[in-house]
């Protein structure tokens, strides 16, 4: 997706008030409903952000779910008690039926969130989405000025478009969240980012350090800030907050878990709260889980209730029976659930292992190595490519990667 949403960033540092409220209530012995449904409508995107968390092997748009299939997913999930719905991607605006999907889900009682790059938005479409019942729009920014923003996004005039649309979103009366994915490339702009957010009258602002999945994992050396950079950024954020005196946007600063000694409570626990449906209908406990050596169900073949309550893959990491040591005997296992399964898998090759972020993990040195490696990147940065480009580069289809000189 164009940004890492608060849906995914269930990082210890309170992504927002919201999740806290949701999270504290949702865990119980009986499987509660999938309160949060993330609908990744398409992986296609006009931007090329190197921090993108989408899979590096993109599927073709022809496999995408139809309007009717999506509506069925929303109806079934809502019946189970899902209440928050995020339209994400890729760029969800590329779906021409977005208004239909918004209307259907809003009529069902969902709180509807559009998570967009802002590219493809027009004043007219913002108005049409409002009529359809859209509750909130989140726009991603890559930097605080056209130069930095458009270089990271890999698209000219992106900043100008985002700025204009953010103004229009507020003018048309929506609550607006801005999402800045922070990395080495833009962390020095944090003060400017905060001033821009005030100018745009954002309600919430996520200053979210990139998490390293998908394209971002490939590009980690180019993204992961140093500890000193983070300390300085946090100081600036706190200073800015003090000067706000309770006015203006609510800023949420999310630091990367690589500098923590305990892992994040990923997804608030596997299969407890979050359900992601990918463009081709795969149902996942988080939007990165497809990488794991598990077979995930597809909404074309199973109902949401069957998937959530009975599917082997959703059951697999629920509770703590699956845990190895040191998690099994750890008195904090109820707090972080052993951390992120994808991170364990990417770094150690074994999805059952303790998240290497944990200082108790025997693999914790891998995090230390990653931090050191990021000081002097040895590989060139790769830009996320969209599907039309990917098809042109069919020879490279195995990796779907275009190497770009830096």
């Amino acid at each position: 997706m164009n940004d890492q949403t608060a849906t995914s960033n269930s990082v210890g540092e309170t992504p927002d008030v919201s999740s806290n409220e949701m999270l504290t209530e949702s865990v119980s012995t009986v499987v509660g409903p999938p309160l949060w449904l993330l609908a990744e409508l398409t992986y296609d995107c006009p931007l090329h952000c190197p921090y993108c968390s989408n899979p590096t092997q993109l599927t073709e748009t022809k496999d995408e779910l139809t309007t009717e299939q999506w509506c069925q997913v929303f109806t079934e999930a809502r019946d189970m008690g899902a209440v928050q719905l995020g339209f994400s991607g890729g760029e969800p605006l590329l779906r021409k039926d977005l208004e239909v999907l918004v209307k259907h889900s809003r009529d069902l009682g969902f709180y509807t969130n559009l998570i967009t790059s802002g590219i493809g938005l027009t004043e007219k479409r913002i108005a049409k989405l409002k009529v359809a019942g859209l509750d909130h729009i989140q726009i991603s920014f890559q930097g605080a000025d056209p130069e930095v923003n458009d270089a990271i996004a890999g698209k000219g005039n992106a900043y100008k478009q985002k700025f204009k649309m953010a103004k229009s979103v507020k003018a048309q009366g929506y609550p607006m969240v801005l999402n800045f994915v922070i990395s080495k490339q833009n962390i020095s702009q944090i003060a400017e980012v905060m001033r821009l957010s005030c100018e745009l009258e954002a309600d919430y602002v996520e200053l979210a350090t990139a998490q390293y999945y998908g394209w971002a994992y490939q590009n980690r050396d180019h993204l992961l800030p140093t500890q000193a950079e983070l300390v300085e950024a946090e100081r600036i954020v706190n200073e800015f907050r003090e000067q706000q005196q309770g006015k203006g946007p609510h800023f949420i600063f999310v630091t990367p878990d690589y500098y923590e000694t305990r892992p994040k409570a990923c997804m608030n626990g596997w299969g407890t709260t979050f359900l992601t449906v990918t463009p081709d209908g795969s149902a996942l406990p988080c939007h990165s889980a497809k990488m794991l050596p598990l077979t995930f169900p597809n909404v074309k073949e199973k109902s949401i209730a069957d998937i959530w309550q009975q599917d082997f893959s959703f059951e697999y990491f629920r509770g703590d029976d699956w845990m190895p040591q040191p998690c099994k005997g750890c008195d904090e296992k109820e707090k972080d659930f052993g951390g992120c399964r994808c991170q364990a898998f990417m770094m150690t090759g074994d999805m059952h292992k303790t998240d290497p972020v944990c200082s108790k993990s025997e693999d914790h040195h891998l995090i230390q190595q990653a931090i050191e490696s990021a000081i002097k990147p040895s590989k060139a940065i790769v830009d996320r490519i969209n599907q039309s480009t990917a098809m042109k580069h069919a020879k490279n289809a195995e990796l779907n990667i275009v190497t770009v000189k830096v």
Partner: protein
Amino acid sequence: MSTAAVASNKVPVLNAMFRFQWEKAQNCFVLLFPEGMVKLNGGAGEIMQLVDGKKNLQEITDTLNEKFPDAGDLSADVNDFISTAIEKKWLYYE
């Protein structure tokens, strides 16, 4: 929680950021906002149902006292909840 008396002619209004609705699966009223949800307890739900941008605090209290005659005077409960809701920016005074 603040128990400071609030002028009873003030009219509380729901902040446009929030949506108030009954949530069957949670068996309670909730406030929905970008990517989040606040679950309200029974009393809070009763008060919120009366927040329509027209009724003032006195009218809300009177309506509740009528609806729950055995509960005693509810003005302190109303004041407490509304103060909290204002502090959390769920509501504002017109």
